[in-house]
């Protein structure tokens, strides 16, 4: 935090005319408002009765007479299987996130700091796999899982999410690790450190910010996933995550969709907590310290 505030005061001293600062604050304010309005609309509507949502805009609720209700939240939270869905989502998301981070960081280090023939081509193929649409992999993979006898289990979902998450994870980590200063690794090698030592003692600690952002994204993607869970878990309600439970608040004709307003915030709560928890790793200085050391 101190590094950041020093940086901030340093720039503010230097960023010239006051007008510039005002412009800076103003543009950030405008962007933030534009970005927030849709979500605020949803938030306000989540406290309104369904007939009101359908007949008038959310902004009309901000003026008297106030007719807010907790009914939508009560309906969603009272839904059978919601608590189980929440726990299942955690069961699915945390291991799937950790597996991706673990598997990807070794590969990223190898791509960044080891030399071998065809390295770039292999790496680009790995990244290119990002383009494989989830939908076409469902059938072949479900077949494999069926043969292995793990269709319908958490393990199937963990493995699938790890596979789908790897290309981006390797891409991002390799790029970051490849940008770390060469001298650090060279001097470590001179001191007799092997690749394993360099990886655990240098590359990993220096990559904390990018590991943190990767963790957030992987967490979010898995948390918000519906199709992978649905297909690989199948008809086992006791294993279904929150997204499957929530999507089914709505009936088959789309009725009762107003419940999705409240559900959206209930589903969103945990990812936001994770985001705030990991935000302290995004400040300047962590890498700097490690690099100097």
């Amino acid at each position, binding site marked *: 935090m101190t590094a950041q505030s020093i940086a901030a005061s340093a720039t503010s001293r230097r960023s010239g005319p006051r007008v510039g600062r005002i412009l800076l604050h103003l543009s950030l304010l405008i962007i933030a408002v534009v970005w927030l309005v849709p979500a605020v609309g949803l938030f306000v509507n989540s406290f309104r009765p*369904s*007939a009101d949502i*359908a*007949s008038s805009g959310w902004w009309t609720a901000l003026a008297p007479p106030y007719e807010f209700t907790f009914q939508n939240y009560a309906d969603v939270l009272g839904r059978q299987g919601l608590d189980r869905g929440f726990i299942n989502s955690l069961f699915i998301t945390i291991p799937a996130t950790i597996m991706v981070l673990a598997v990807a960081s070794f590969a990223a280090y190898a791509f960044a700091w080891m030399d071998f023939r065809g390295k770039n081509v292999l790496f680009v193929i790995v990244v290119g796999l990002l383009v494989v649409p989830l*939908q076409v992999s*469902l*059938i072949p993979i*479900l*077949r494999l*899982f*069926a043969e292995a006898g793990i*269709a*319908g289990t958490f393990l199937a979902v963990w493995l699938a999410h790890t596979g789908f998450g790897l290309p981006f994870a390797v891409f991002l980590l390799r790029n970051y690790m490849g940008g770390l200063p060469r001298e650090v690794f060279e001097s470590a090698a001179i001191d007799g450190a092997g690749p394993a030592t360099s990886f655990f003692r240098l590359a990993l600690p220096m990559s904390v910010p990018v590991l943190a952002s990767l963790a957030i994204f992987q967490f979010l993607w898995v948390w918000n996933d*519906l*199709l992978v869970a*649905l*297909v690989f878990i*199948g*008809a*086992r*309600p*006791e294993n*279904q995550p929150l997204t*499957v439970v929530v*999507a*089914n*608040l*709505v*009936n*088959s*004709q*789309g*009725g*009762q*969709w*107003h*419940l999705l307003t409240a559900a959206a915030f209930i589903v969103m709560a945990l990812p936001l907590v994770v985001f705030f928890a990991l935000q302290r790793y995004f400040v300047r200085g962590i890498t700097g310290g490690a690099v100097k050391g």
Partner: protein
Amino acid sequence: MESPFMKRRRLVAGLVVSMLVVGACSDGGAATSAPAVSAAPTTGGESAAPTEGGGEIGGSVSVIGTWGGAEQDAFLAMVAPFEAETGIKVEYTGTRDLNAVLTTGVASGILPDLAGLPGPGQMREFATRGALKPLDDVLDIEAYKSETSPGFVELGTVDGQVVGVFIKAAVKGLIWYNPNVYTGGVPTSWDDLWSKAGAAASGDTKPWCVGLESGAASGWPGTDWIEDLVIRQSGPDVYDAWVAGAQKWSSPEIKAAFEAFGEVVSQANTHGGPNYVLNTGFGSGANPMFADPPGCLFHHQASFITSFFQDEGGAAEGDYDFFPMPDINPSFTGAATGAGDLFGMFNDTPQARALMAYLVTADAQAIWVGIGGALSGNKNVTNYPDDVSARSAEILANATVFRFDGSDLMPEAMNAAFWSAMLEFTQDPSKLDAILANLDSVQASAYAQ
């Protein structure tokens, strides 16, 4: 009217009968008693030892369907007596991505025991590929055929065997109105309807309210319109040929239906005009009918729409009523259209058989009907909770010419193109010929498969 006590007794009796049928069928008629039932493999995990009398089976049965929210609750209420009676646990997962789940499932062999089926087209396909199990020896087939409307039995039959059954049904082609606004009485013909509408409409109160938006299925309310117009303008033979892919879209008969619909959604005759129609969810389509001043007189929609009137339109019971869509061509009278939720069996387990046999009984279907929001294809179900649904059910039972929702019967690619065409046509009616020509070309390829 029967007392709740009587109903309960009949329910249990029906259950026991259906259990016995299951037992008798699954061991091929051999003279062993209930244990034969549990000899078949189970997918649902632990299979409990059956008790005497064939009541207890135990284990579980997995079910996937599209029902969510109140529908899911109604289905679970429907199977609750079954679970209590047999000890079988019904594991239900609801999702609107049913198509994706079943398609991948059929391709890889991992399927739920029972499933709601997206439509008759997919049912046929799953059956011909051997994924869906024939139900002739699962259900009490004689009782099923005598209790169920013949149209529904036929729709669930592929190659002479029943593979799909209807859990609930809806009747389409109802014209809804607000009795506090429209007091002109029931029109005797389509022309009479327009003249009555002309007399009652004024200023901002247009004859029609229409909403075509429905997420990924946008446009379907328009296809219902066309179907109801075709069958009343040109009769059931043209309708059947058209649904079967033998009647061209560009033929005068189908084109006439589009033109009649075009009049409904024109700027002059519909609340808000075409842009409003395209952007309004079908569920809130009728809302202006309940507004003050009212935005329209009539709304064309299926029987299930009443819950939307209450939830989204803020209407109370008594604010809405309906008459069946009137006849158009006097040589084709008494037509009605409807739809229903198909159900089929993928894994042949004793638990799945028992549940399947149970679900088609009048006692089971009466539970959902009693909760509201559903009609039953079973003639013995009569416990409709209100006048509106009782009268809807009567239409279903008494129609001289009954047809299933045509677009649902078409191949999926045709159905999807039909949905989109309704949007395109509403947006720009002058493109009608091009739209129909495109539908003709989809027809040429979609039915070929």
